[in-house]
């Protein structure tokens, strides 16, 4: 049966009779397999500190990539929205600060945190979409700064400077989700879900319209689209992804404080998205992995060459400069250019009708 189908496929029409799994590019199989068996290869530290953290930062940066890449809106408030979700989990759920935390069950706390963070993100969007370009960046940066100072000064709800510690994931299905392997799969699951959600939404009518708004807001208005509403809706969708990342981030550190969503981390998310490449959804994850590797190992590199270890930000900054200088579309851009050069020299021509799943720009 499979052979017969294969014959029809190759002889008549390449798109007829293609089995669904044949449309998935080989790279997905390879990367998917490696990620799934990673716990067999990697140690606890790598699983939790490198991959877990990368997936989380990748998701938050992905929400920025969605807004910037498809909507043309650079929002610096994505880490703040993640922080908002994290704070809500700490406030409504369980933490070391008994005086504030409400100890509600997880099945109320998590949806509630997501809803509040999405509402907050939508509100940020409603403020930001009335502006363009650098003013959007300024407004969202102002929101981020306001959130940081507010949480640091408010002791009644946000417990001020100290924030909340002892915020742990619920022990669902009898699994300790903070165990390295369990946490690896937990973050992998949500990161993959967010990634494919973005890929899917990109090709949906809403996603197409959003790209239309990015390219040509005036024309979209002249086609009957409410441009403002579309932009705000994009913020809502991005906020959901950022909020999920924020909750995972709190669980991973088991604490949240104003510094979690301070100006530094807010900028880091932008750096991650830009370094990885804001053209495609995989970019933020690549950027996050590079960032986490630098954060983790820059110390050792610096001490080994005799420099003071606190200069690790210098390495990150230099890396950022180099990548932006050589490739405005991030590491992905470098890779694509290298690939097309290799292909040209091999004499291949890019075929016009590429597979939908493969062409995810």
């Amino acid at each position, binding site marked *: 049966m499979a052979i017969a189908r294969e014959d029809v496929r190759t002889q008549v029409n390449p798109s007829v009779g293609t089995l669904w799994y044949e449309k998935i590019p080989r790279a997905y199989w390879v990367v998917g397999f490696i990620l799934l068996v990673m716990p067999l290869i990697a140690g606890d530290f790598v699983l939790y500190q490198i991959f877990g953290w990368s997936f989380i930062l990748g998701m938050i940066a992905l929400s920025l990539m969605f807004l910037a890449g498809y909507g043309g809106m650079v929002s610096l408030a994505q880490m703040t929205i993640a922080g908002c979700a994290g704070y809500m989990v700490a406030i409504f759920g369980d933490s070391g600060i008994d005086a504030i935390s409400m100890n509600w069950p997880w099945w109320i706390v998590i949806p509630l945190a997501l809803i509040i963070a999405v509402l907050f993100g939508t509100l940020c969007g409603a403020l930001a979409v009335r502006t363009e370009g650098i003013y959007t960046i300024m407004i969202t940066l102002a929101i981020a700064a306001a959130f940081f100072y507010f949480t640091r000064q408010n002791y009644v709800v946000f417990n001020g400077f100290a924030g909340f510690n002892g915020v742990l994931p619920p022990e669902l299905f009898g699994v300790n989700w903070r165990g390295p392997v369990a946490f690896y799969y937990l973050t992998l699951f949500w990161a993959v879900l967010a990634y494919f959600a973005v890929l899917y939404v990109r090709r949906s*009518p809403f996603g197409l319209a959003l790209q239309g708004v990015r390219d040509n807001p005036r024309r979209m208005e002249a*086609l009957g689209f409410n441009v403002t509403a579309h932009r705000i809706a994009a913020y809502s969708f991005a906020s959901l992804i950022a909020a999920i990342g924020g909750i995972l981030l709190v669980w991973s550190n088991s604490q949240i404080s104003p510094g979690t969503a301070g100006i530094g981390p807010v900028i880091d998310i932008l750096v991650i998205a830009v370094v990885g490449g804001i053209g495609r959804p995989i970019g933020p994850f690549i950027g996050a992995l590079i960032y986490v590797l630098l954060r983790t190992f820059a110390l050792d590199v610096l001490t080994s060459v005799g420099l003071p270890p606190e200069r690790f930000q210098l390495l990150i900054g230099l890396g950022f400069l180099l990548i932006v200088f050589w490739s405005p579309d991030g590491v992905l851009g470098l890779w694509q250019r290298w690939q097309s050069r290799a292909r040209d020299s091999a004499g291949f021509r890019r075929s016009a009708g590429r597979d939908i799943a493969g062409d995810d720009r």
Partner: protein
Amino acid sequence: MNAVSAPTASVAHRLSAAGTANALELRGVTRMFGALAALTDITLSIRPGERRGVLGSNGAGKTTLFNCITGDFPVTSGTIRFFGEDITHFPAHERIRRGLRRTYQISLLFAGLSVLDNVYLACRGVSRARFSLLRPRRNDALMQAAEDLVAAVHLDDVKDNKVATLAHGQQRQLEIALALAGAPRFILFDEPAAGLSPTERAELVEILTSLPAHMGYIIIEHDMDVALRVVEHVTMMHNGAIFKEGSPEEIENDPEVQELYLGGAHA
């Protein structure tokens, strides 16, 4: 092509109004840019199904007129009625959803998307479910409508190509396809023939003359060969005001108009 653009509540109202009302009724429309009057006191009535040409030299206010009618710019004073409904203060997308369409003088297309996706977006814009997260199925009605439109403007060969790769003439054709999406009742064509070859102009005339009879339009066109073949009535603009109205023959033979405009063009 069956996508209904309007909120149901007002459909009956508008249909009854449409029987008696003009397709487009402008009263005393004025648009100022600072101290400069781009349009002064424009009063214009166009019957449903009427095809009107707007002529005038550069800076006469033709495109500003379009921008005011579609809501790209707000008017400074005056009222605009569309099939009897006062749309003066409606945002652009609400006017479009009521069946008004326009094309742009300089193509405003989505260069990164395919031809079919461009038209599909246009069909989506005037349908419900603009925010849908569900991907269209292969037999999606709007996708079918988009395919039909692409064929109607002779672009089926390149429907999967990105717009950025299209030739100028093809982009102009796509521009028209976007305006025909949904159920347009009235279309504003802003110099659709600009930069087209003679063959493409003939094709454009064919597309325009084969539009359904109920579909009225205003066309801004410098090329008299095109303009005079596709309109029944001509409005001549000069310095932001209406200078003369009449049949194409009257306008073409009017000595004042020849002095002002045609003289230069036909000399």
